[in-house]
């Protein structure tokens, strides 16, 4: 069965679900139970809350929360008494809260049996729980959890507004705290320093300004005490917006934020924007002034005050990063393997294709090769595209429609990096395939991708273009330039100034069209398609081009990739090769248990980890590295050639064999390209 991103996670029917799915389920069940309990206790404790305002809640049991409450209390006191607040303590609290949020997030978000839930995130799952008492909450939760493709025009007929509002919980929560923190900082600053400041500046120190714009303003003019009109406006604006978010937070998380209520008028529902305190700032004026003064000064020369200010800034920075992390979306995806089996896994919205590939490779034990790819197939349009390693997977999958027949394939594709294995066939604009010494390949790649700018291969020639809305294909002379694809208009020479722009590459991706001879009556089956990634159905905005042979097609596709991604492609390839080599190192140690980071781990930590495990490789000198790299690629290309000739490939050394075949039945090659692995497989078994 074809599954889309948005899936019913139903474990009875999940035939191929592996151990992980079960773990997920177990964890989720436990989590649900816990939350149910909490909801109950909360309902008991606050019976006066009207049900529709029953907001998502936080576990009240751990120490972090106690200290958190405590610090909120402190702030309130400070506000009243004008005492200085220990910001660091507050930051610590924020961090622990964040951690707590993180642990909740880390738990599976698939609401087993409870709701359809695919594209989900922390907010949504909390929302679900919050509305657990009433079924309306659950249904609205599921509707907002649906992957609604960004950018589509939709008529908001469904449950909207309030449901979405309530889900702002986590961010608003933290925001409110942050703002309160700075509020108290300001207050303190005003108390201690008003005598030393002019009236104008003390006014602004007590006023939240948009940190970006106002600080930039300072830098530009160098005048400190003036408040320009623009600035004044932004003061008003930002204080307004902060009031919004703060009150929003207190509405949404009424249960755990009761101490906040005393500060902010939040008895009213969100519609009413009670004027909050007009003053707060992430960094009060004084701190930012100090920071500006100390910029570039070595640490040991700073005064105590300055150090404190620096610390403050650092802490805020840390807090901001944490907030960002807490906002991470997760997505449960189904990845299809070439043997018609599939795997379910969770990806983080920040994960790149490379990271997802790594974790898939680790799980499937199918041996490392740079050719492993995630391929998007759009069945309805009969086209597919290999995701580039640097692309964000979630972003791409979000373009799929809800009822999409699209698939995500995990498979080996030799064409993914063929460009770098035999650059002479792609970069020199030659018509015939040819051989090149490894040394020259390196030089060629270095020449093309090593410089500050990447030159696009000179691709030009006659291609077939499918006329808009017609069945006929027409010949045109096309040229590729860095700025887009052009064609030569009738009766003109191919001088640059006369070229007509066919399309620019910024907004389109290049896909490989399949079997278009029968689908669209194309002259050949070597077709490429250019379309905006969000377009999922037949449209006049999709452009179809047909080449005379497969070689031309591959040259065009790869040249377009170079024009579009430039150096990034080469970086991707180098990274893939690094991992491959690392994998060989591991296999020689026969340690299959080395982990390369699980799907739920943060990208940062993951890359840290892999760089550690790569250490043996990264210590090599760069020149040695590239050499060994291309040695590997030559093995591949050799094997490929021999493989296609139907020979037994004894060229590969045994170690490589091994890595390829560990658990490989689950993997393998697909569609019209037989890869090295399958050929060898046949000989081996």
């Amino acid at each position, binding site marked *: 069965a074809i599954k889309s991103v948005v899936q019913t996670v139903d474990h009875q029917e999940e035939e191929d679900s592996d151990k992980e799915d079960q773990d997920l389920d177990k964890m989720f069940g436990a989590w649900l139970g816990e939350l149910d309990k909490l909801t109950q206790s909360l309902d008991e404790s606050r019976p006066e809350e009207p049900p529709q305002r029953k907001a998502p809640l936080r576990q009240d049991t751990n120490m972090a929360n106690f200290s958190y409450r405590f610090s909120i209390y402190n702030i309130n006191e400070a506000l009243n008494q004008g005492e200085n607040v220990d910001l660091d303590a507050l930051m610590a609290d924020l961090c622990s809260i964040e951690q707590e949020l993180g642990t909740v997030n880390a738990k599976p978000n698939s609401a087993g049996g409870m709701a359809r839930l695919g594209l989900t995130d922390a907010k949504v799952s909390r929302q679900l729980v919050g509305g657990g008492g009433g079924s309306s909450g659950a249904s609205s939760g599921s509707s907002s959890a649906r992957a609604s493709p960004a950018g589509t025009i939709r008529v908001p007929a469904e449950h909207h507004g309030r449901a979405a509002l309530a889900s702002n919980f986590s961010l608003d929560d933290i925001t409110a705290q942050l703002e309160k923190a700075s509020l108290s900082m300001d207050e303190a600053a005003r108390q201690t320093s008003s005598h030393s400041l002019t009236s104008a500046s003390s006014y602004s120190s007590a006023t939240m300004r948009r940190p970006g714009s106002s600080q930039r303003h300072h830098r530009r003019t160098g005048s400190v005490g003036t408040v320009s009109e623009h600035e004044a406006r932004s003061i008003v604006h930002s204080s307004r917006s902060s009031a919004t978010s703060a009150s929003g937070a207190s509405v949404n998380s009424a249960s755990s934020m009761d101490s906040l209520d005393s500060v902010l008028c939040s008895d009213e529902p969100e519609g009413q924007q009670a004027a909050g305190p007009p003053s707060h700032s992430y960094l009060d004026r004084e701190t930012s002034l100090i920071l500006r003064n100390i910029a570039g000064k070595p640490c040991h020369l700073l005064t105590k005050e300055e150090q404190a200010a620096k610390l403050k800034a650092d802490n805020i920075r840390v807090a901001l990063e944490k907030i960002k992390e807490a906002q991470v979306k997760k997505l449960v995806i189904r990845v299809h393997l070439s043997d018609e089996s599939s795997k379910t896994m969770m990806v983080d919205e920040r994960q790149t294709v490379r990271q997802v590939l790594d974790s898939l490779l680790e799980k499937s034990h199918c041996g490392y090769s740079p050719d492993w790819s995630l391929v998007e197939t759009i069945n309805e349009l009969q086209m597919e595209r290999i995701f580039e390693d640097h692309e964000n997977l979630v972003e791409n999958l979000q373009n799929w429609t809800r009822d999409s027949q699209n698939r995500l394939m995990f498979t080996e594709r030799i064409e993914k990096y063929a460009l770098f294995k035999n650059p002479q066939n792609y970069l020199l604009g030659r018509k015939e395939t040819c051989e090149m010494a490894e040394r020259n390949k390196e030089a060629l790649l270095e*020449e093309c991708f090593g410089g500050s700018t990447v030159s696009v291969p000179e691709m030009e020639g006659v291609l077939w273009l499918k006329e808009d809305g017609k069945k006929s294909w027409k010949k045109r002379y096309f040229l590729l330039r860095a700025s887009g694809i052009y064609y030569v208009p009738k009766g003109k020479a191919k001088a640059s100034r006369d070229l007509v722009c066919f399309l620019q590459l910024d907004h389109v991706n290049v896909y490989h069209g399949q079997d278009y001879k029968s689908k669209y009556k194309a002259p050949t089956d070597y077709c490429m398609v250019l379309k905006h990634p969000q*377009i999922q159905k037949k449209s006049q905005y999709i452009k179809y081009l047909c080449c005379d042979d497969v070689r031309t097609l591959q040259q065009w596709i790869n040249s377009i990739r170079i024009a579009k991604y430039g150096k990034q492609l080469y970086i991707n390839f180098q990274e893939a090769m690094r991992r491959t080599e690392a994998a060989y190192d591991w296999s020689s140690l026969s340690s299959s248990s080395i982990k390369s980071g699980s799907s739920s781990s943060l990208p940062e930590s993951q890359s840290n980890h892999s760089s550690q495990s790569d250490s043996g490789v990264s210590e090599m000198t760069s020149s040695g590295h590239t050499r060994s790299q291309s040695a590997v690629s030559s093995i591949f290309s050799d094997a490929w050639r021999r493989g296609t000739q139907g020979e037994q490939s004894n060229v590969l050394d045994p170690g490589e064999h091994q890595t390829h075949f560990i658990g490989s039945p689950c993997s393998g090659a697909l569609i019209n390209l037989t890869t090295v692995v399958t050929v060898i497989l046949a000989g081996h078994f």
Partner: protein
Amino acid sequence: MASWDLAVTVEDLGSDAPAVTLSVASDLHVGGVILKLVEKTQIKRDWSDHAIWWEQKQQWLLRTAWTLEKYGIHADARLLFMPQHKPLKLGLPNGKTLRLKACFSRPVFQTVMGICKILDIRHPEELSLLRPIEEKKKKKDKDSAEEIYDLTEVPLSSASRPLLYDGMPAHFADSPEMEAVYKMLSVTQPPPAPEVIAKQYRPASVVDKAHINGRWLDSSRCLMQQGIQENDRVWLRFKYFSFYDMDPKYDVVRLTQLYEQARWAILLEDIDCTEEEMMLFGALQYHISKVSQSEPQMVSSNAAMDDLDSALQSLEVKLEGESSSASDMLVGHIGLDNMRNMISYFRPKRLTLKGYKQYWFKFQDTSISYFKSKEESIGEPIQQINLKGCEVAPDVNVTAQKFLIRLLIPAPEGMNEVYLRCENEEQYAQWMAGCRLASKGKTLADSSFQNEIQSIRSFLAMQKKSSHGNAPTNDESINTHSLVSPRYHKKYKAKQLTPRILDAYQNVAQLSLTDAVMRFLQIWQALPDFGLSYVVVRFKGSRKDEVLGIAPNRLIRIDLAVGDVVKTWRYNNMKQWNVNWDIRQMAIEFEGNINIAFGCVTADCKIVHEFIGGYIFMSTRSRAKSDTLNEELFHKLTGGHEAL
């Protein structure tokens, strides 16, 4: 040893003064001659820069330990005692003229190094000097009025890199005049008037383009040897289009001048580009000139602070974006009311002739929603359109009071085309700015919103101006004809050009000055013909002239009849090359027994030889990775037999 009389003209005594006669013996070394000479003139001054020039042999006597005999100097030698550094008028890539002291005694390669040191340009090996194109006599009076920036007072220092003061070499901080010179060097020039562009020489063919390359000075010989006199005018240009290690932090002047050279190459169609590319270049020029006028360049700022700033800013944007579902309060600076407007809306459907209909529009986050009327705007909108990822294009005609925003919104079914018609300029500027930000996923609360509005306004103003005939350009507004090559002056009126440039402009309007300059250079470098220097040659055995294109990584052979590249040879495959100086022929051997040989028609074969050797030298730099320039290698690769 017998002594004899040697006459030496001392330049500092004046042109009329008689030569100083010394009594010397043939075993006296040159240093001794100079010592005697200085004693005899009885002038007390710093003579350290002075040296003797032998006029007949066109040679400097720089080896002071060599004896007269070793040099072969006899009593009939015409010797001239003069400073090695003399004023030179230098035409810069930005069209300005600079007077500075350059070395006349060392190979031009070193002269350029010295000049670049004064001007604070790194990697002088990429530049060289060439003889200017003779200007027509008619304009002589105008030339004399030309402003000349004087740098002759700059002391000659030996430090490899000048001390920096406030981000610029210390000698520029000496006086306001010097600072003005630095400003001229480091800040891009405003776009030239269209007439100025039109007046300049434009190559019409590849052969025309080839002629300029005959003017390069020989890097291995000195200025005096090449007939360049004191106060003569030469051009300083980037010669090798292989720019190593460009860093906006250290390369302010280098980048600015490179940008200027690139800009002129495009305006004068020295390099071909498509119309779309020309519009983008125009938009970037417009943006660069605007930004460089408004914001003086920032001297190094603290990176850590920037981090924090941007982190806070992005958080702020995010917070505002997130919390806004509850509020329209976000619409900060301009006040919310301005972004809730009656706007005409039109969604073209096939075969319908329905026109625009008025709705009440509201901008929220990255979406616009519309309602039947203002009164209904509290309820559910008729439709909500998320603009994230959409294409926004202007369709404006100020004179006709047409202010259309065309939106192409991607959806699974294809692109949805939507038109918003604004009432007036002000409304248009705000909504257009909002749409553009939203298409990039930014809300109205983003700090760039005001800038965006401002840039749209200024562009509208420009269109207004150009529609009132060709008003003289001033600093405030720019004639769009100043941004494109004369070909487009004929093809489009300024008011037709404006929307096209504006179209391209929206993709670059957010760039900082440095980023915009870098982007311009990148696009320039990505042009297919980038980096090609042409020379007309005659291949061995061929009866017709052909053109050889010399690129940073390859040679191409262009058939003049076809006008197309017929053959490409890459330096990577080059095994060796030779110059037969007697018959002025170059022979190159490539791997696979490919041999080519040609004589040069429009340039001396030394120039061609130097180009090829120079590019091979440039390609060795990345491997060397050291700061010191391997001058010896350069001369080895480019010198030819004279250097050996």
